[in-house]
């Protein structure tokens, strides 16, 4: 080895016209930042002059270094064999060589197979007991709002005097009246990350009320109260109370939740309102309608006619608003399968498919004969409505599950958060942000100031990232100055997560360079 190096170096000395200088990397194969379709058989590094390798390593996307020991020197080009087939993701070819002047120099070449490494979803610790309680509370709240208040609306507007199903609807509303405040306490526990035992503490309830869910509960209680009032109060005000209650259901849902929190708010909140009110209209009518047909077939014909006239536009609104909200939340079709939120949506869509099939059969096959008084059709319609109710309950269960699954939209926002570091030295200060702050393609943004917060003009700013514990030699990128005075580097790829050493070389004048450094944490 020593002999070989000596020969190489002697050759460098004796070569005519050869200056003894440290080597610079001229070209690489693959090129820095390249995205390759498949694993390369070899790498090559061409320097400005002959070199001898000291350490050559390939760092895989998971951060494990693989030493590269098979190489050939071919003039100024170093050909390195790739010992293994590389999986997809961003890899780092880290090199350290010694040039003719005896000075070791090092650097890194980043390339990706298939596509740059992407960031997997985030996860957090789960309190299963609390989650189940929140879920049950949510389902019962839905029962109260949709079956209860929606049922009250159906009795007031569609049944018009018929009172079948009234007791069922009252029971559903009571169910909601219990679930709504209880949900608030559970929400407080979840917000504070507190165990069940603390449910009685006032602070927990305050915390729950402090969240946007507090408004949902307040409005829901008003809606439930209005629904109850329309059933037990004077006949005269029943329609008005029921209508206000139905609007309250939409408002309660629009006050909180993933869908309402999404941008643009002027679109999402009205969509949630219409969606919620639509569900209450449809689901609420099912029980009174089924019970009326079964118990008082004579009164049922008018009820059935009014319902079947109104349901088509309502379903159209439900489908349209549901579609808009799903697109806002899921964003990319792939997220339907890749995220828990998307999978729940698929389950809900499957249930909806059955529901629509049943509803269509009811509407176009059974409604006509049932209105005409055919007992067989009426019997089948009642059974079919019963099954519809079960599917509706299952859908409530799925929708309540969304409480625990951040939608792809929110996941994307979380993943896009930058990694930042503030570097403060007497000579210079800098704010360095790497966006998004996880492995994969990123952009770096740098704001520089003097040590006492004054403006710092610079001719050039260079970002130097290295990760010695992963064997990654410095990755150097020159920043370009933007009109707003910040310095920016685009097209950077961070190959592995963890703590990186970030250094900023700030050229403050032609002859003065300030170097400041700090560690920066890159997420997975």
């Amino acid at each position, binding site marked *: 080895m020593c002999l070989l190096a000596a020969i190489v170096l002697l050759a460098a000395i004796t070569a005519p016209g050869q*200056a003894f*200088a440290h080597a*610079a990397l001229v070209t690489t194969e693959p090129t820095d930042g390249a995205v390759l379709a498949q694993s390369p058989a070899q790498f090559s590094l061409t320097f400005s002059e002959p070199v001898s390798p*000291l*350490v050559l390593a390939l760092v895989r996307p998971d951060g494990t270094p693989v*030493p590269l020991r098979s190489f050939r020197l071919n003039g100024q080009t170093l050909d390195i064999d790739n010992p293994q087939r590389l999986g997809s993701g961003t890899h780092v070819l880290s090199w350290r060589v010694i040039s003719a002047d005896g*000075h070791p120099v090092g650097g890194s070449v980043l390339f990706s197979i298939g596509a740059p490494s992407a960031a997997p979803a985030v996860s957090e610790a789960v309190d299963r007991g609390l989650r189940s309680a929140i879920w049950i509370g949510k389902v019962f709240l839905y029962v109260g709002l949709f079956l209860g208040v929606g049922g009250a609306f159906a009795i007031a507007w569609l049944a018009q005097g018929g009172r079948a199903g009234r007791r069922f609807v009252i029971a559903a509303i009571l169910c909601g009246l219990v679930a709504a405040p209880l949900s608030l306490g559970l929400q407080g526990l979840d917000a504070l990350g507190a165990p069940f035992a603390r449910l009685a503490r006032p602070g927990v309830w305050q915390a729950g009320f402090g969240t946007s869910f507090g408004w949902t509960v307040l409005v829901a209680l008003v809606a439930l109260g209005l629904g109850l009032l329309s059933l037990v109060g004077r006949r005269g005000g029943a329609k008005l109370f029921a209508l206000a209650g139905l609007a309250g259901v939409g408002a309660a849902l629009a006050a909180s939740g993933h869908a309402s929190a999404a941008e643009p708010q002027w679109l999402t909140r009205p969509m949630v309102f219409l969606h919620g009110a639509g569900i209450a209209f449809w689901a609420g009518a099912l029980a009174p309608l089924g019970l009326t047909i079964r118990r008082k077939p004579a009164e049922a014909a008018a009820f059935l006619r009014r319902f079947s006239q109104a349901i088509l536009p309502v379903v159209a609104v439900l489908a349209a608003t549901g579609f808009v909200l799903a697109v806002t939340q899921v964003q990319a079709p792939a997220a339907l399968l890749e995220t828990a939120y998307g999978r729940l949506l698929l389950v809900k869509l499957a249930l909806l498919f059955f529901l629509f099939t049943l509803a269509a059969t009811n509407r176009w096959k059974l409604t006509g004969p049932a209105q005409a008084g055919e007992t067989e059709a009426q019997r089948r319609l009642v059974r079919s409505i019963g099954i519809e109710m079960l599917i509706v309950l299952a859908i409530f269960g799925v929708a309540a599950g969304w409480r625990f699954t951040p939608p792809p939209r929110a996941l994307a926002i979380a993943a896009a958060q930058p990694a930042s570091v503030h570097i403060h030295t007497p000579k210079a200060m800098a704010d360095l942000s790497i966006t998004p702050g996880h492995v994969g393609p990123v952009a770096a943004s740098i704001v520089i100031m003097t040590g006492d917060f004054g403006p710092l003009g610079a001719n050039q700013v260079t970002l130097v990232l290295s990760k010695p514990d992963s064997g990654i030699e410095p990755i150097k990128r020159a920043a370009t100055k933007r009109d707003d005075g910040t310095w920016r580097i685009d097209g950077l790829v961070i190959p592995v997560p963890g703590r990186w050493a970030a250094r900023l070389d700030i050229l403050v004048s032609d002859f003065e360079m300030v170097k400041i450094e700090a560690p920066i944490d890159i997420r997975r």
Partner: protein
Amino acid sequence: MEIRETIMNKYLLSACAFLVFGTGAAFAHVTLETQEAPVGSTYKAILRVPHGCEGKATTAVRVQIPEGVISVKPMPKPGWTLQAKQGRYEKSYQLHGQTVTSGAKQIDWSGGSLPDEFYDEFVFRGTLAADLPAGQILYFPVVQECEGAAERWIEIPAAGQDGDALEYPAPGLKLLPQK
């Protein structure tokens, strides 16, 4: 085992390099030929430029004259445009019975072309003021410009820092006591 082997190779190679070259660092950077001089004397500075920037030809060399180096005169060079930028010193100096308050603060050789595979020298002369602190090192930051690239030999070691650790050290002159 693999790691140890790599480290072994690294040390062996470094050792071999030093065997062949002695202190190789002197070949790598832009340096002064004479690296020691007594204060209060006339000093002829010869800047040695051993290579271009990343393989590209050198097209300009600029050197900043540190405070205390007075009455500086650069040597013209065929094929290069010479410019000496004048400025005021931070204080006044006595030279041959006269008070000197200004002089060359920066010298530029530009418009030339020194291919990467050739070597050249850039020369200027000046007087080291008698009150410069003997025992310390005076740095002459140099910017080497090439076609579309530059190398800045402007790094000055911080107190207690090893100058050999710097990537682009400024050429230094050790000040000796006055003769």
